[in-house]
């Protein structure tokens, strides 16, 4: 499989795969374009923990990991308002259709959206011989927390914009894989 695995410096390829996954899933499931604003790639330090603009924003964070010949986890950070908008787009609803108690619906939709993005990303890894499986999605919600990743993970953070709102995709990969 050495001819298909990741190159010695995989950051650019991983970035390309992640951007492709986000664009594809947004285009298909919510019929919206997700534009990449900026990215931090190839960082093994964590000095730039992802912050959405306005730290007091209530955020919904979708998390899905992948485990196998390569291990990692991807977090999708969305402002609550955008998360609600995307959930409605997926389900063909208007935000007004969702009541105050419908956080569960939004959580589930963002969990699935994250699952599809990470699935699309990791399927490209599988096709390169790095077989791995998805974990079950989980959701964090709130305004005063930070996710502290494990030390020494290969980390890439991508900031996207859609419907005039920004969101982040935080990709963390276990560097112990032989090609990383």
């Amino acid at each position, binding site marked *: 499989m050495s001819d298909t695995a990741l190159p010695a410096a995989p950051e650019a390829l991983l970035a390309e795969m992640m951007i492709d996954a986000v664009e594809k899933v947004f285009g*298909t499931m919510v019929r919206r374009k997700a534009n990449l604003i900026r990215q931090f790639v190839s960082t093994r330090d964590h000095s730039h923990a992802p912050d959405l603009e306005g730290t007091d924003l209530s955020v919904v964070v979708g998390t899905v990991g992948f485990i196998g010949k390569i291990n990692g986890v991807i977090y999708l950070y969305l402002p609550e308002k955008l998360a609600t908008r995307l959930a409605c787009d997926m389900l063909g609803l208007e935000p007004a259709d969702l009541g105050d108690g419908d956080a569960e619906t939004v959580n589930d939709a963002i969990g*699935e959206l994250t699952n599809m993005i990470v699935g699309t990303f990791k399927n490209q890894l599988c096709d390169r011989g790095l077989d791995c499986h998805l974990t079950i999605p989980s959701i964090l919600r709130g305004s005063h927390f930070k996710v502290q990743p494990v030390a020494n993970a290969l980390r890439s953070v991508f900031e996207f914009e859609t419907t005039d709102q920004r969101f982040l995709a935080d990709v963390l990969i276990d560097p112990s894989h032989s090609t990383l």
Partner: protein
Amino acid sequence: MPKKILSVDDSKTVRLIVRKAMKPYDMIVCEAQNGEEGLAVARAEKPDMILLDVTMPVMDGVEMLTRLKADPELKQIPVMMLTAEAGRENILKIAKIGVRDYIVKPFTEQVLVEKLSRIMTLEPAGAAGAAAAPAAGGASAGRTVFIVEDKPAIVQAVTDTVKNSAWTWKHFTTSAEAFQAAEKNAPAAVVVSLSLAEGAAIDLLRSFRGRPALAATPFIGLAVKTAVEDIQRAQESGFAGVSAKPVDAADLEAKLRRALKLEGVFRAAELTKDHMLVRLTEEMTSAQLDVAMAQVMEKATEAADSGLGVAVYDLTAVKTFTVDILKFLISATRKCEDLGMRCVMLGTSELAASARTFDESKDWHFHDKLESAMATA
């Protein structure tokens, strides 16, 4: 009587999307959140089809599929995977257990409806009564095929050369005329020029998909081979196939036969004077591969009895090397080899590259010409 579909997915969002996609049809949607619940609901409801996710808590989709196929009462229920898991090894593992099709998330409702309609008839909701509008492809549709093309010479070429007692042609110059006529009498299929102005062919397909009585109507595009973008857009939009201009009568007829589900007419295997020829068409459905396999089983014995020692598998028309095709070829060539025949394959270099991505076929050689294939045999 409405059909029943079971959606097994831990995501309520996916189950809601499936429910929404099925709303225009006479369909009962049952739900389960994991494999264990899925098996229980399958036993209680005996659905006509199961849509199954892979990664779920409690019991995952692979485990449920394995148990389902081991249960004599449930194993006949067709299963379609609907999952974000699409790695080559995962698909192969699941395909070996037995699934009818595979939808990789993200997915559109349109793709879901189209894939389901290949396996089961999707009747429009409320159309069960005798007065209901004829469903596309149904017997009462009279197998009228619309051709939407603004160039009379092409219309004539199609209607003169692609003749089959199984259907009759009806010509329209614009997509608006065709849609208006379809609302009164649903056609069995639509053949439409992809060069109609302003993407009218794809808009017509979307208009059909928006009407439950017309939603399952198969569309076949007509385009010159160089119109790569138009062809790609059509395929992404859900066209059942695209046939080349100038009109290749055999190709268009084969696509129409397939679209009209005239599987009995489909002939994949035949004997020539010095070999058995197995020819696969551009887009083989699971059902067609089953038919092709049955024909290979029959013809291979006949070929061996006649003293023919070579089986030629012609895949030159095949664009994508799928898991289903891989499984078909493994079984079909094994049958021929068991009968003492040598197997050779024809295919494009793109197809060969695609085949190399599977472990089972990574060493297969595809010849570009029959002569060179026969020389090696």
